[in-house]
């Protein structure tokens, strides 16, 4: 059995949990068709029902007042018992900040392996392996867990597509599992989360990025790219020469001397693709390059390429997007 530990905020499941369900289903398949179960710590709201409705597999909710506000101590205590009693072969989670906060302690307490930030599953049914980036993405490692199961795995956000969940029309069962957590054993006292105005532009969190290069020709032409960013709900970014010229602030620079990003969609407008730029964006899921030079190296990393005048093509894309 593969156990997914769901993540939610006040009962609302996050997208990463669905991605993890997809990864779990792929792993289950590779292992010869194992069942997938889901545990929802501190379940409130509709999280458990939503999962059950998808018919993925048995849903277990862990209920205790101590699990209402997340703390690593309470989660580790609750899940240690659950994992031990359910004996899954793999316990899988999304590689979120929350998972990073408690899963290493959970796995260590059980003396089990934890493989983090996994982007793909490989290997055989007997010896599955996991692909994960190392050296800041410069290398991809194939990693094999050692020792007895269960093995914990966290999956990189966006590595699997949430919309590929294999749902079943049969509703899964939901079991409430009472866990007892001694409140006095919880050492962290959390306060209410709050949002803060970002101090700087954090392009690494952007889902879509429209990046401009020298091909934009002058600062006065930037609105061409900005209109596309607006139509896509994307952040605007740039290659080095643009920021060096002061057309955009330095924090919007992508590349070896700027930020490293991996959005779902990266549109490169008039960027030739110097290696210094490529190292900052080649991990993007889908890359579109628009450049008038058919030999520009950017096309080597692009999924979609258009050779032509960006001042004609970009407004056409904006018009197309606004059609709907």
């Amino acid at each position, binding site marked *: 059995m593969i156990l997914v530990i769901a993540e939610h905020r006040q009962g609302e499941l996050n997208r990463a949990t669905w991605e993890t369900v997809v990864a779990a289903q792929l792993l289950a398949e590779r292992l010869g068709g194992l069942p997938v179960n889901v545990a929802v710590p501190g379940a409130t709201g509709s999280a458990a029902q939503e999962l059950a409705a998808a018919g993925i597999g048995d849903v277990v909710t862990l209920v205790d007042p101590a699990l209402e506000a997340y703390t690593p101590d309470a989660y580790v205590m609750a899940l240690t018992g659950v994992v031990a009693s359910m004996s899954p072969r793999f316990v899988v989670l999304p590689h979120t900040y929350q998972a990073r906060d408690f899963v290493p302690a959970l796995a260590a307490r059980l003396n089990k392996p*934890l493989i983090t930030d996994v982007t793909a599953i490989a290997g055989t049914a007997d010896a599955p392996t996991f692909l994960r980036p190392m050296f800041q993405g410069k290398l991809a490692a194939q990693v094999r867990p050692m020792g007895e199961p269960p093995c914990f795995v966290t999956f990189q956000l966006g590595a699997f597509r949430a919309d590929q969940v294999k749902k079943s029309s049969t509703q899964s069962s939901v079991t409430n599992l009472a866990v007892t957590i001694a409140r006095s054993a919880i050492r962290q006292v959390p306060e209410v989360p709050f949002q803060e105005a970002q101090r700087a532009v954090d392009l690494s969190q952007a889902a879509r990025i429209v990046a401009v290069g020298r091909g934009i020709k002058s600062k006065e032409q930037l609105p061409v790219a900005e209109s596309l960013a607006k139509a896509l709900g994307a952040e605007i970014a740039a290659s080095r020469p643009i920021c060096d010229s002061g057309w955009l602030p330095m924090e919007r620079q992508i590349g070896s001397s700027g930020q490293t990003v991996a959005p779902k969609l990266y549109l490169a407008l008039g960027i030739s693709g110097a290696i210094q730029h490529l190292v900052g964006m080649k991990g993007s899921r889908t890359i579109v390059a628009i450049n008038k030079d058919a030999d520009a190296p950017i096309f080597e990393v692009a*999924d979609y390429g258009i050779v032509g005048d960006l001042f004609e093509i970009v407004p056409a894309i904006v018009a197309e997007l606004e059609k709907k």
Partner: protein
Amino acid sequence: MKIAVCIKQVPTREWQPRLRDDKTWIREQDVSYEMNEPDAYALEEALRLREKHGGEVVVCSAAPARVQQILREALARGADRALHVEDDALAAADACVTAGALAAAMAEEKFDLVLTGLQSDDQGHAQTGVILAERLGIPHSTIIMEVQVEDGRLRVKRELEGGWFQWIAMPLPALLTIQSGINQLRYATLKGIMAAKKKEIRTVPLAAGLQRTQQIVALAMPSRAKQTQMIGGAASEAAKELVRRLREEARVL
């Protein structure tokens, strides 16, 4: 306050990956190393806490002998002494082994506060700090952007995703993993470098019996399986086709 900072030595950001012949680890001969960036911020935070609350800062690392380069650097920046668990096998150790090695060497020191970077720029497990807290039996919190110490208790600002934050309180002793950018790093000074030569680096052997929990079967340059699809035609046609493919094939719109 007695503060430990765990630091790791990683290849510099400019390093171009080269693989060992067996393709399970990097070719170390040509690598130049530096202090893992988040660890440098952890060290700076420790120095600031010491300046405010007094006490001692001890840098700790579980690594081959080459790590003395960054231990010296940390001493030059102001750490008081260093603790080095030395073993060649630690170069490519997983987080469990590294944390276990550190825990064994650090336990008797009874630190009030242990700081680590949130993850390393080499293997990037993002586990060592949390496992170390577990092994030392102390509470922890991760990805910290501010540290306050009052009446023997900690209050720390933890970063959540998407611009959200949360304050967490906990008793000392405790472990925190520090986020890059929490403070402004200081430069090592000439006087600091000279003073560092007189500071102690205590070397201890790797504790026996630490088991690896994972094995690197293969390392490779990330491959790109996708083929570039060129879209031709007049601007309006190309735009239309691109938007269609982004919606239907790539499904990113």
